[in-house]
């Protein structure tokens, strides 16, 4: 019997509400460090995720068993655990937003993948060449690292309410890290990119050699840059940092599970939370690394307008929260592997472009900074208070970019920052690097937008 038929039979044989998701991931990882092929691995991770809804409580079991007998046993376990946990659950799941019963096959790839598939040999060779190029870029380069990851997901989702979806989802990413030294001070700089698609599409705009050049140039800026004094400044954030702000500091607060937990936007639908120049959306259909045409509950992706011209319009939902809020889910229930349950996640989250020219935005700053990309990482609370460190920064003095600076950490409350936005550029890019978001489990996401000008607290090291 075909696996899909087995899943259907298991679901049909139980009275409880069930969702079965077969999820097979075939991945390839290649990493070259300092000329050494550190990693060349293939990996298959496959199994079935089972969610049962019993007495208003979920039960979740994941198993690599795919036989009818094995799955029936795992389903019984999921139902039993939900039943046992239900008495402790105070707020029961009262229902799920309905989805139209459907049978479909969906491929998330942007193109029909007609290009010739790049061979393993070629991928290893090109990554080694890029690492070699990086090592030889100058005497100030002390170490190099080029890494590439790809995976192809195949999923079959079957639910008790008539959903039968088959999904193919190819994603890949690349990272280039340059390490350098100047006057005994070490620095590192990284550039990265992630897409939904294959190797050819990943390098369609910038080649590996271009990324190496960018990393070297960025490293040299960091090696010569000066530390700055902390304080509140007018700053211009590039699309990558706008993406970080949109995703980390705003996006998480509007995920309905965080809203329920008391995030800062609870009860604020319809209120002004940002400058009227700001429109922020989450869009699983966009051609970014977070492309999710159908989510892991079998729900079609939508373009959810979170903030419309400064007014908070929507939260992000799964079927459970959408039912509770009497709205439609937008395709935001996602699970990273078969061992993870679907939870509310972003997809591609971005601020819509505006009408300003970047050059004019810079001219309008008397003392401030042009800030680009995130360095080591960032954190944000459900209060929308955030902390990000900046990869690339330039002082702006009297409307002119003067010199590179480093060691900048941004802190603040994201909605207050968005209220201070007084210019939004025409440019647009999705640029969240390798695009991994963590929320108990990873997810491939993307984020970005235009350049925005706003006020921000900067923590420096001078």
């Amino acid at each position, binding site marked *: 019997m075909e696996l899909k038929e087995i899943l259907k039979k298991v679901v049909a044989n139980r009275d409880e509400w069930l969702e079965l998701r077969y999820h097979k991931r075939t991945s390839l990882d290649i990493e070259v*460090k300092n000329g*050494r*092929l550190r*990693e*060349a*691995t*293939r*990996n*298959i*991770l*496959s199994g079935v995720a089972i969610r049962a809804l019993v007495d208003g*409580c*979920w039960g*979740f*079991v*994941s*198993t*690599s*068993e795919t036989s009818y007998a094995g799955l029936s046993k795992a389903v019984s376990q*999921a139902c039993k*655990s*939900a039943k*046992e*946990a239900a008495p*402790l*659950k*105070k*707020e029961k799941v009262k229902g799920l937003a309905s989805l139209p019963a459907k049978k479909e096959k969906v491929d998330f790839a942007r193109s029909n993948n007609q290009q010739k598939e790049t061979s*393993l*040999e070629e991928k290893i060779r090109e990554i080694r060449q890029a690492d070699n190029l990086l090592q030889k870029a100058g005497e100030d380069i*002390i*170490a190099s690292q080029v890494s590439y990851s790809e995976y192809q997901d195949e999923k079959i989702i079957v639910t008790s309410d008539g959903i039968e979806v088959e999904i193919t989802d190819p994603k890949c990413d690349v990272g280039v890290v340059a*390490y350098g030294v100047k006057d005994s001070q*070490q*620095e*590192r700089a990284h550039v990265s990119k992630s897409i939904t698609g294959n190797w050819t599409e990943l390098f369609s705009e910038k080649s590996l050699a271009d990324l190496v050049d960018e990393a070297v140039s960025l490293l040299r800026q960091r090696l010569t840059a000066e530390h700055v004094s*902390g*304080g*509140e400044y007018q700053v211009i954030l590039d699309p990558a940092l706008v993406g970080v702000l949109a995703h980390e500091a705003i996006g998480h607060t509007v995920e309905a*599970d965080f809203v*329920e*937990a*008391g995030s800062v936007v609870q009860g604020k639908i319809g209120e002004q939370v940002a400058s009227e120049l700001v429109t922020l959306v989450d869009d699983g259909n966009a051609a970014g690394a977070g492309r999710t045409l159908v989510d892991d509950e079998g729900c079609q992706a939508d373009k959810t307008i979170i903030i419309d011209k400064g007014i908070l319009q929507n939260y992000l939902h799964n079927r459970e929260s959408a039912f509770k809020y009497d709205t439609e889910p937008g395709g935001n229930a996602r699970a990273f592997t078969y*061992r993870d*349950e679907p939870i509310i996640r972003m997809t591609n989250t971005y601020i819509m472009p505006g009408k300003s020219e970047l050059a004019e935005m810079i001219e309008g700053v008397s003392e401030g900074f042009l800030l680009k990309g995130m*360095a*080591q*990482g*960032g*954190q944000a*609370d*459900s209060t929308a208070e955030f*902390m990000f*460190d900046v990869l690339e920064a330039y002082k702006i003095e009297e409307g002119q970019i003067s010199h590179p600076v480093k*060691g900048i*950490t941004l*802190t603040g409350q994201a909605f207050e920052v968005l209220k201070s936005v007084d210019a939004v550029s025409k440019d647009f890019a999705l640029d969240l690097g390798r695009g991994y978001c963590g929320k108990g489990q990873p997810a491939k996401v993307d984020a970005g937008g235009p350049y925005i000008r706003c006020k921000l607290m900067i*923590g*420096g*090291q001078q």
Partner: protein
Amino acid sequence: MERKKDDVLALGNEIVSEGLSRGIDDIEVYYQDVDSQEVVIEKNDLQLPKADKYKGIGVRVCKDMRIGFAATNDMETNSSKNLLDEALILAQNSPPDRNNVFPAKANLSEVKDIYDSEGAEIELNNLIEISKDFMTEIKKDDRVMVESASFSANIINNAIFTSKGISSQYQKTFFSAQALSFAREKELVSSFDIEYLASCFLQDLSIKKSAARLRDKVVASLGAEPVESFKGEILLTPFAAVSLIMRPIVFAINSENVQNGISPWKNKLTERVSSNKLTIHDDGTEAGGIGSKKFDREGVFPEKFTVIEKGILQELLYNSYTAHRAGRKSNGRAAGGAQSTPGISPGNLIVAPGKKSSKDLIKDIKKGLLVNRYSGSVDPVSGDFSGVVKGGELIVQGKRKQPVREVMISGNIYDILDQIIGISQNREDIMNYKLPYMLFSDISITGKDSLN
């Protein structure tokens, strides 16, 4: 839970034999199975009971000094032959490297107290009861909100088989509880705080004590006020020291980073790297240690050694590759599981205790901060750090004055290691770290005044 040890042994030996018959120079088979159960709490309510059964195998081959690795958890449709094929294709496309060697067979001995046979019988309803106990205790103060919490039980079986004759298995149990919480009183909201417990023995998880401690911490940080900038002392709790101090140290003592020239301690063996108050041991076989194991990812015994002795760097962490490159033997720090090739990580990093209690260290502070949690960046390459103090308290003339907010600390980790002026006698176990409170002098503390 009894494993079918013979089945695993047969599978490992079959793959090794099959590989040797194909002319592969060296083969390593790493097997792992994990039974996990977990109860998840969100927004003060039970969210999800979970269970997972994982069984996977990774095969690493070496032919003509070329390495390839393939792994799968689909044991039914991916035969050992397929795995060997995949690994060989990768090896054929890899460059030769004379340091690609697998370790020779050596004596392995059992590690004490890493398997709780009674705890291994745990069922999901036991975890539900544990989560209930936690919630009852923490909610004794109704100002406290539990953002998220989880309680988990894991039973792990590891096995390794190599063409060099290594053939061994061990079982381990791992129980953990973690919670993220805050307090709210009218308009006042505290910062988030975390409690994390982990043990190889279920009965060692002091759930109620942990809930009470988290409750007290978040309530104490209500009404936090900004402070002015100053240069003073900071006392890091063990939890804050993990992210701010220990992770950069782990990066710096990783032999791969040293060999690649990116560790700030690349030429520092036998030299001073910190204040003489700091002594760190790494023990991969400590009884009951979360990081303890019978063998590392390559089948090498994870011996105990001193990393830093009174401020002097003594030893680095090696796997077989970096050890061969350095012309020495591995000290058993190859890390990873069946789905990955060997990396490098410590066993149990243990910071030697000082003589004073953490309470007495507070009395020594003229003007400084108690840093409960650190939320910020630490660049392990340059050592630069800058971030926000969470759950901080202002200390003046040895007395705890007030909780603080919107306070940042910054500097260079490798520089401030020389500014350690106190180490507490009392220590806490956090994952595979045993850490005291650590007192630092002359730290830049940026308050609200400088941010305007």
